[in-house]
């Protein structure tokens, strides 16, 4: 087994007259928390969309766990164990918290096309669902409608649903976006916890989060990889400073 | 004995579509005149009239008929224009064993394959039309025919019956094209007809469809290479096309307002109300209901079987028909006329449109009773 669970070769996406993702060669190591960084519009979300086939690459190849998945559909990729979250929270608003998670687990029962069956069969999953909800502190809210949750809790629910699928690779798109301080810390800790035994690829703007949990970082700018390495390397990389993090204090002082 | 202490008449016809002028409101008015002339009473009971629009849809007609027969205690149902709708209503009326008088429909199926003991078919049918116009045209030299046919029961019947007549008279059918009922654009059909090389374009359609096909034929110059034969034309159609577009055309009709003093008198009364002259159908509406009411008066009941028997036993003699007779198959047979549309110069007054060219005796115009395919006819 290769040490890289996910590899892309020359991955490119062009929209009418404009390249959003430009020959990206990404390699995600098994067991890592790998962060994808970059200014707005750098192509991070587009990258996720390509990896999960929500968009079709213009060029390039995607290999997951040794299989070429470039030609597969979103659902097939998901069934291989690549589960993503979305930049804008993606829950099923009118289902309860419990049902939200159960929908994911239901896939493994093989009954999803059984339109003549009642729901009693699914009830056996509830214990497992509640255990998962416990993990993200949502157990008490299990019977609320997802729409009624505060924003931060929705993101937690989304992560719980993602986790329920026992993915080999989790793709998280800005999991802390739009959250208050405490939620950010909670979710960061959560990601750290759930990342044990699996691989996480995440997009994140919040550097504090990235610094504290990412094993490896890839920085994108205008669709292309600008730099790659661990936090220490990347945060000192001059191009990154220039394009993304802004000039550092020393130079800031020197400007005057 | 009169059920519900009232004689209830219902008419379901096209009140808003392409046949609305031929029957429609005018037909309702004619029936009202018949009721008024009976002083609103028959067999000592009050007469009531219901009317509805079937929009030329068989399902609307049959659903309405069923509802009236089930819930309104209707005694006699009058089926206005549209053969498809009439075939459907005839079935319902037979199922409920109530008198059904079909007036506007042309399809001869009503008194052949699809006859019922309760159906009376008044005014005319496709056989009579074919015998009249079809014969006349072939005799005047129109041997090669192409049909433009309305795509429903009526069109099919008319085309089939005319084909038989034409072939018997030594003519030939070159081809045909079907157009939807109430079509709006005839140009491509006409182009096909023109390409066929036939001499005669037989219009197996009616009302608005006939008017429009004649207009478009003029527009596309079809009339330069072919002669038109309107197989069913009403005076209203001639009126809206004008004599210029129609002069010289042959047509078969069962009645013409200007045919006799009696007819003129009745028609003037009708004109007062509707501001136009009655069509054959509207006159037939009056005649049929008057005949029905007389039968009710005579039998003192509204029992369908007795009334029908009486109607079939009594000859019809009024301004509409002379010695008209309803056969065992339900067909009302009376003399028909072959008309020719007058030249503009000949027309003396508005609505003065026809010359009677020939009277077609009842037994030549209609299928003979003995030849009827109706199983009710004992052979």
């Amino acid at each position, binding site marked *: 087994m290769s040490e890289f669970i996910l590899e892309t070769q020359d991955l490119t996406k062009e929209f009418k007259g404009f390249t959003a993702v430009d020959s990206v060669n990404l390699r995600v190591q098994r067991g890592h928390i790998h962060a994808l960084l970059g200014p707005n519009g750098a192509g991070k979300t587009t990258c996720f969309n390509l990896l999960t086939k929500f968009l079709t690459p213009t060029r390039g190849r995607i290999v997951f766990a040794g299989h070429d998945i470039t030609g597969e559909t979103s659902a097939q990729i998901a069934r291989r164990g690549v589960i993503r979250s979305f930049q804008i929270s993606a829950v099923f608003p009118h289902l309860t918290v419990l049902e939200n998670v159960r929908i994911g687990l239901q896939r493994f029962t093989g009954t999803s096309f059984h339109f003549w069956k009642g729901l009693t069969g699914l009830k056996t999953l509830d214990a497992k669902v509640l255990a998962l909800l416990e993990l993200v502190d949502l157990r008490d809210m299990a019977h609320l409608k997802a729409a009624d949750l505060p924003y931060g809790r929705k993101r937690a629910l989304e992560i719980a649903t993602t986790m329920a699928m026992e993915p080999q690779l989790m793709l998280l798109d800005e999991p802390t976006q739009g959250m208050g301080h405490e939620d950010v810390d909670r979710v960061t800790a959560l990601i750290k916890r759930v990342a044990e035994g699996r691989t996480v690829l995440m997009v994140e703007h919040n550097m504090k989060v990235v610094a504290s949990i990412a094993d490896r970082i890839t920085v994108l700018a205008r669709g292309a990889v600008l730099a790659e390495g661990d936090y220490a390397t990347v945060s000192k990389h001059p191009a990154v400073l220039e394009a993304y993090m802004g000039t550092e204090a020393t130079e800031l002082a020197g400007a005057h | 004995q009169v059920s519900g202490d009232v004689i209830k008449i219902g008419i379901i016809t096209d009140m808003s579509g*392409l046949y609305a002028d031929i029957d429609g409101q005018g037909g309702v008015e004619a029936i009202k005149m018949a009721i008024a002339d009976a002083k609103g009473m028959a067999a000592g009971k009050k007469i009531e009239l219901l009317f509805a629009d079937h929009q030329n849809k068989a399902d609307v007609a049959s659903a309405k008929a069923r509802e009236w027969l089930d819930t309104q205690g209707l005694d006699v149902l009058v089926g206005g224009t549209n053969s498809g709708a009439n075939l459907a209503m005839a079935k319902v009326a037979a199922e409920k064993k109530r008198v059904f008088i079909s007036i506007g429909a042309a399809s001869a199926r009503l008194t052949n394959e699809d006859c019922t003991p309760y159906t009376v078919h008044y005014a005319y049918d496709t056989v009579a039309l074919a015998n009249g116009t079809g014969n006349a045209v072939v005799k005047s030299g129109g041997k090669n025919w192409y049909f433009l046919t309305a795509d429903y029961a009526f069109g099919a019947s008319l085309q089939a019956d005319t084909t038989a007549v034409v072939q018997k008279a030594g003519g030939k059918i070159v081809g045909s*094209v079907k157009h939807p009922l109430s079509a*709006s654009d005839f140009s491509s059909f006409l*182009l*096909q007809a023109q*390409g066929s090389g036939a001499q005669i374009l037989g219009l197996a359609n009616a009302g*608005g469809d006939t008017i429009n096909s004649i*207009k478009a034929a003029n*527009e596309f110059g079809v009339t*330069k290479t072919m002669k038109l034969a309107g197989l069913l034309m009403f005076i209203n159609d001639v009126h809206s096309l004008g004599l210029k577009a129609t002069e010289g055309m042959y047509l078969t009709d069962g009645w013409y307002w200007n045919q006799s003093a009696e007819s003129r008198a009745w028609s003037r009364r009708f004109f007062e109300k509707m501001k136009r002259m009655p069509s054959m159908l509207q006159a037939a509406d009056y005649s049929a209901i008057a005949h029905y009411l007389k039968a009710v008066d005579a039998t003192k009941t509204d029992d369908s079987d007795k009334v029908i028997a009486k109607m079939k036993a009594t000859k019809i003699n009024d301004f509409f028909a002379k010695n008209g007779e309803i056969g065992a198959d339900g067909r009302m047979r009376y003399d028909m006329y072959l008309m020719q549309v007058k030249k503009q110069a000949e027309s003396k007054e508005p609505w003065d449109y026809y010359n009677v060219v020939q009277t077609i005796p009842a037994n030549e115009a209609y299928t003979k009773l003995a030849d009827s395919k109706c199983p009710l006819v004992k052979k």
Partner: protein
Amino acid sequence: MTELFGIPMPALLGQLLLGLVNGSFYAMLSLGLAVIFGMLNIINFAHGALYMMGAFLAWMGMDLLGLNYWVMLGLAPLLVGLLGIVIERTMLQWLYKLDHLYGLLLTFGITLVIEGVFRSFYGVSGQPYSVPDALQGATNLGFMILPNYRGWVVVASLVVCFAVWALIEKTSLGATLRAGTENPRLVQAFGINVPRMVTLTYAGGVALAAFAGVLAAPILQVSALMGSNLIIVVFAVVVIGGMGSILGSIVTGLGLGIIEGLTKVFYPEASNTVVFVVMAIVLLVRPAGLFGKEK
């Protein structure tokens, strides 16, 4: 007589030309739909009804006021455009935030109301409208006798379609419109009154439908239902073309008219369905339509 696949040439050319006449209407209507869709993101179901209204206004103008064809050719689109403004201001504008389907449903309701009104006054049978004097008569083209009026329809609609195309593609007003379809919020941030632009676009789109209606009046019977069957074919045209470009909708409209004309020659039974069959095939091969953008 020359023949092609056993069909006499004149018949073929004649039907092709008639197809072009129908295609002109498809083109004008799908063009209006495309323009409206671009700005409002609404599929204007009422397009057929407003087309019918155009024809009816022409007829009423003649019948009630004695206004001739040429006057109504200008007046009817104006009146329908005004009605469009009313519809947009009082109803459509409340739907932009909702699922686009509501726009379809609302305009469907409007269709029923407009048709219902005309039906209740005039029934469903057609009212005749005669060809204007200047365009009476026919020209013998050798292979067929083409009524002059039909020739005029093709010319007029081509001129209008390309004028609209030029207006949108070549003028600064058109540039604003195009920008508005791409990113209305930003255009508004430049100080342009986008809501008003939206209203006027709708008015313009439906005026185009009314113009088509007046053109159709002398050819077809003016009837309450003349728009409703046409609009569905136009929808199919739109699906085939794919709401991509203005030119695309014109080309698709004309093209399908011609295909339909050809079908009338080779397999007349299928002439009503051919557009839909083409649609099914296009959907299989290019789900986004011939000129459509990938979503």
